[in-house]
Structures are given as structure tokens and as C-alpha cells.
């Protein structure tokens, strides 16, 4: 049985179709990442799965339970960080964790948990005085108090410094090692590449791509590209003397390669141009390239070169 199962899920707010018939499933022990631009419907989807919002239609099951109808049962078995996590103003992180422990009837060691999310240095500071990143870390700690099987993290690293972000990554990896299922949203694509077994890219409430990052890159990417440091003279030469598609800007020229022969042509042309160049690299479309392409489509972005 998958840990999370969604099919044909729909949710409308007034005129806005926030979630428009999405379907996906997440296996037990998997780390699944939901990506998409602002307003794509990620939070809405996650909140429906957490039992915090009712769906309009479709099915949603978490650990085999209907999140809205069986929320009370489900909540004992899941952990959640809401987007923009906020808590009561006055409890300290240590008190907050003890409070959650008492509510769930679980014995917890606040210090151990605080160390795990690297918040032990601020364990006695009132919540309202914690920094943004420290608050976020407390959210992470609280989501783990009840030893959950499935953890929903809605933008857990937004606003964190690089070190804290890596600490969160560490926590997520450990959760995966322990066999827990994690569903995560993020705007940092490298975070998804780093952590997720599979990702889904959402746009206007629909999933436009889903799979491992490699699968998505090869399916939606436009193949190899050669990037070389060089000026407009190089770009001009390439456009006038080859049939290659090339784009320039910011001291870089990108040449899109359809096959191996293109690579040879490009190299030759660069050499012949006589223009100054350096730092030549060849790489495949990254997740970010694919993301921008998929998300930009139909909005008039990313179609310039076609």
C-alpha cells in the first residue's frame, strides 16, 4: 500500500482552481518533492493530505485513511511543518516540545530533538524572539515529536542559512534512512535533486512532469548544451556561419546541441571565429532548465529561441 495516494484531486477557491485533477502516489519510505511556481497549488494539495482542508472531489488517502474524515486518527501518525510556520509567542523551544510530547502522550527528550535540528543553542528563547530560521527549525522539531510515519514539509528551508539548510537535509536523509515517508515542497531545485527520490512539477493545479530528476531531465530537456565564456562577436560569428541555435548574454554564449555532429561543428566554429573564448563546458539541461521551460510555457517565457 502506498503511503500517499491521490487521484483526480480538485480544489477550487471561488474562481481559482487551485488543484485541478492531480494524481500521484508516494511509496512508503520514499522522499517525494512537489515543485512549482508560486500559486501552483502545492500548499493546497499538502493541506488536503494533512486533513487541514477539505477537497472538492477526487480521492486522497494517507496511510490508507481519508485525511478529512479520519483526521484525528491520522494526525497521530503524521508530522507537519506548515508553510511559514508560526507558533505561540511565548513558549521556548524546549517548552514547546514538552507541550507537544504531553499532547501526544509521547516521552520525548527535548534536548535530543533540539540537537537534531541544531536548535540547542536557542532552546530557552521565547518563540517570538527566535530568528526566522530558528523558528523554522522548531517547526521541524515539533513535526517529529510524535514519531510520525509520514512527514509533510511545506518549504522547510525557506529563509534558512546554507548551514541550517544542510542540517535540515541531514534530518530528512535520516528520516528516509529510518524508513519514513517524506513529502516536501521547495523552491530550491537543488534541494529536490539532493533529497527527493521522485519529484512532481505542478503548474496551475496540474502536474506537468513527474518522475526521478534524471527521467524528467531527459524527457523534457532539450538535450546537450555547450556553454562558453565569450562576447557578442562570438555569438554573431556562430549565428552567421553555422545553423546552430545560440544564445548569448552576461559574457556567456550557449549553443544548443541536437547531436554529436553539432558538437564538432560548434567547436570548429568557435576556433575559426578568432574571438576570445574560455571555460568551455558541455552539459545536459538541468532540472532548473527543465523547470523554467515547463513552468514558463504558455506564459510566453522560454519560447524566444524556438
Amino acid at each position, binding site marked *: 500500500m502506498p503511503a500517499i495516494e491521490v487521484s483526480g484531486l480538485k480544489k477550487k477557491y471561488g474562481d481559482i482552481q487551485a488543484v485541478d485533477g492531480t494524481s500521484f502516489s508516494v511509496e512508503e519510505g520514499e522522499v517525494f518533492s512537489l515543485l512549482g511556481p508560486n500559486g501552483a497549488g502545492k500548499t493546497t494539495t499538502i493541506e488536503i493530505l494533512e486533513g*487541514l482542508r477539505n477537497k472538492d472531489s477526487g480521492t486522497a488517502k494517507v496511510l490508507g485513511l481519508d485525511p478529512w474524515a479520519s483526521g*484525528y486518527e491520522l*494526525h497521530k501518525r503524521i508530522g507537519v511543518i*506548515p508553510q511559514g510556520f508560526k507558533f505561540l509567542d511565548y513558549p521556548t523551544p524546549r517548552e514547546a516540545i514538552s507541550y507537544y510530547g504531553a*499532547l501526544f502522550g509521547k516521552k520525548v527528550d527535548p534536548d535530543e530533538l533540539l540537537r537534531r535540528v541544531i536548535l540547542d543553542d536557542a532552546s530557552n528563547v521565547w518563540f517570538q524572539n527566535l530568528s526566522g530560521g530558528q523558528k523554522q527549525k522548531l517547526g521541524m522539531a515539533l513535526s517529529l515529536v510524535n514519531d510520525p510515519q509520514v512527514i509533510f514539509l511545506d518549504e522547510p528551508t525557506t529563509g534558512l542559512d546554507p548551514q541550517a539548510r544542510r542540517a535540515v537535509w541531514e534530518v530528512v536523509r535520516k528520516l528516509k534512512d529510518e524508513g519514513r515517508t517524506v513529502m516536501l515542497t521547495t523552491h530550491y531545485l537543488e534541494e529536490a535533486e539532493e533529497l527527493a527520490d521522485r519529484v512532481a512539477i505542478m503548474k496551475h493545479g496540474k502536474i506537468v512532469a513527474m518522475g526521478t530528476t534524471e527521467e524528467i531531465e531527459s524527457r523534457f530537456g532539450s538535450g546537450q548544451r555547450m556553454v562558453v565564456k565569450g562576447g557578442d562577436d562570438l555569438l554573431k560569428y556562430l549565428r552567421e556561419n553555422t545553423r546552430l541555435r545560440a544564445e548569448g548574454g552576461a559574457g556567456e554564449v550557449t549553443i544548443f546541441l541536437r547531436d554529436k555532429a553539432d558538437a564538432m561543428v560548434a567547436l570548429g566554429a568557435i576556433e575559426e571565429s578568432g574571438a576570445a573564448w574560455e571555460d568551455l563546458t558541455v552539459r545536459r539541461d538541468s532540472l532548473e532548465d527543465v523547470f523554467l521551460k515547463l513552468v514558463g510555457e504558455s506564459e510566453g517565457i522560454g519560447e524566444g529561441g524556438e
Partner: protein
Amino acid sequence: MRFSLSRTMSDLKVYGRSSLRSREGFFFTLVFPVILILLFGAIFSGGGVSQSTVYVQNNDTGPVGAAFVSALNSTSNYCSNGSSAGLCLRPVPMDVNFSQYLSSKSASDGIVIPANFSLAFESGQEVNVTVFGNPSSTTSAVVSGVVAEVVNGFNVRGAAGVHHVGIASRTAVSSNYKYIDFLVPGLIGFAALTSPMFAMVNMSSTYRRDKVFKLLSLTPLTKTEWLLSKIIWYVCTTVVSFILMTAVGVYVFGAHIALNWGIGIFLLLGPFFFVSLGMLVGTVSNTPEAASVVGNLVTFPMMFLSGTFFPVSSMPKYLQAVAHVLPLYYMIDGLNEVMIYGNFEAAYIDMALLLAISVVVFALAVKFFRWRED
């Protein structure tokens, strides 16, 4: 049933600690009540409640009783011109218990004409008119003087030289009602109203905005447990306010207060009601700003018209009518009955009313307040 006392207590611990850490919470719980009583006590200290109303119960059906009343009226009917120097006579129906009636009106001055008055007077027997009064109050002295004068006239009219009509004096229930005596129960009611109402109305909207309710709904804590913990907390703060205000009232201003279990009932029921009401009011508005407007609309009339700062009986009739639909009135009225007059029977009605409406409002609050969204 999912109810768990231990979860309620865990929530209480966190909420109570937060309230004490927050400056506003600390101020409204511990400092504000003391400031209020010092302020109002100082402004009005020493001043008795000016009671120019004298209640008259004529139990006599014969002509002499009526003549006596009209004689009283002719000496002292100042009801219409509003002069503070005069007495205003108000008739009391025959069938009511007079001393209870007096205390229900927070009054101490009254005159009772006995049932056999005409018969006795005409047959030359001795008969007494009873004057209720408060020995230390100036109005009571005026009442006694007026009655003595009228009695004198009757005795002169009767058989020559024989004093058939006498005056029996009775002290009305408690000895000495001063403004401060009413102020203490009034301000306890005020404290029981304001701190839970403002806190709950504010909380219900800010918690929703900050998604704290959503967060709580992800734990096993239930709405009932959450609301109950707030009620317990505000019962505690109301008890503390009560202790502080009573201490200041008694030791600083010499208030007369009877301590008894009836007070405890109101200290429980008041916060029970206002926490529930605050939550219910909070559910009707989505933004903190709108919530505070609605909250004030509900709170302010109660704050001033329920007998908090002045006894309701000293207000104009139409405002008294308004007061009677405000729940806080029943808390303060009941507190007055038990703390000042020791009149439990009158307070039972207040208790029953308050309990009934609290249960209803609590149930409505639990029903209408959602911590998830559709």
C-alpha cells in the same frame, strides 16, 4: 469520548505561562484590577449611595392607612422634580416580603403600615408603623423625621393626648452600604468580563491568521479541551482579581463584604461564560481588526451598563431595562446579593440564568469555531 484532562492541563500550563510572560496579560490580570479599584474607590470614597427613594408598603385596606400614605406624600413627594434633597415615595405591593424587596432594590429605607392599622386606630388601640432604615445614613434620618411628623399629626387627630400610633424602627439588612461595597462586586464582574473577552476575541482571529489553530488541530488536543483550559485559566485570573480587589476594597476603603461560597459560584460562572462568548464572537469575523470591532460592540455596553461602576438601581429606568438583557448584569447582581446582602435566594436565580446561558454559549462556541477550513 476523547476528552483528556491531562491534555487540558498541559495546554493550561503553556497558556498560563504565556499569559504571565506577556506584558498585556500580566497587566490585565494583576495590575489593572487594582488600579481600577484604587481609582474608583478614591474618587468616590466615603460617599454613600444617595438614596432618596423610600419604599412604602401599605398593608391596611381601611381609610386610615390611605390617609397616612397621603399624609406622607404631602410632606415629601419629590419624585417628579428630581430634587436631591427630598424623598420619593414608591408604593410596594402588599403581598411581597418587604425586607427582601428592599434588598432586591439595593435600598435600605422603607415604611410599612400594618394590616390592622385602620381597625386599631379607630378603636383606640396602640399600633406601630415600622420604619426601615440605615442608622448611619442621612436619608434614613430624614425618613424617620418625616414619619415621626406624620405620626404626630395622627396622634393629635386621635383621642386627646393619647399616643396610639408608635414608630418601630428596623435596621435594613446590612448596616452600612457605601459606594465601595457596590464597587467591589461590580469591578469583579468587570474583570471577569474584560480579560477573557478581549483575550479570546483577539486569540480567535490571530490564531487563525497565523495558522496556530491548524497546528493545534494536528495534535490530539480537542477544541473542547482547548476552550476548557482557557476557562480554567480565566477562572484563576478572576479569583486573583477578586482577592486583590477585595483586599484593597476592605483594607484601603473599608468595604463591607460577606465572604461565602456563593461568590465562588460566580467566580466560576463568569469566566465560563465570557471565555465561551469571546470565542463565539471571534468566530464571526476573519481578521483581527474586524474581530476587535465586533468584540467591542459586545463588550462595551456590558462594561458600563451592568452595574460595574454604579449600581444598576441608580440608573434611569430605560437603562435598567437594557441592563437586564446583559448577562454581566446577572453576575454582578448575584455577587451583590451574596457579597453585600448575604441574600442567597435572590442569587439562585442569577446563578441559574448564568449557568444556563453559559452552557448554551459554550456549546455554540465549540460547534461554530472551526480550526480547520473547508
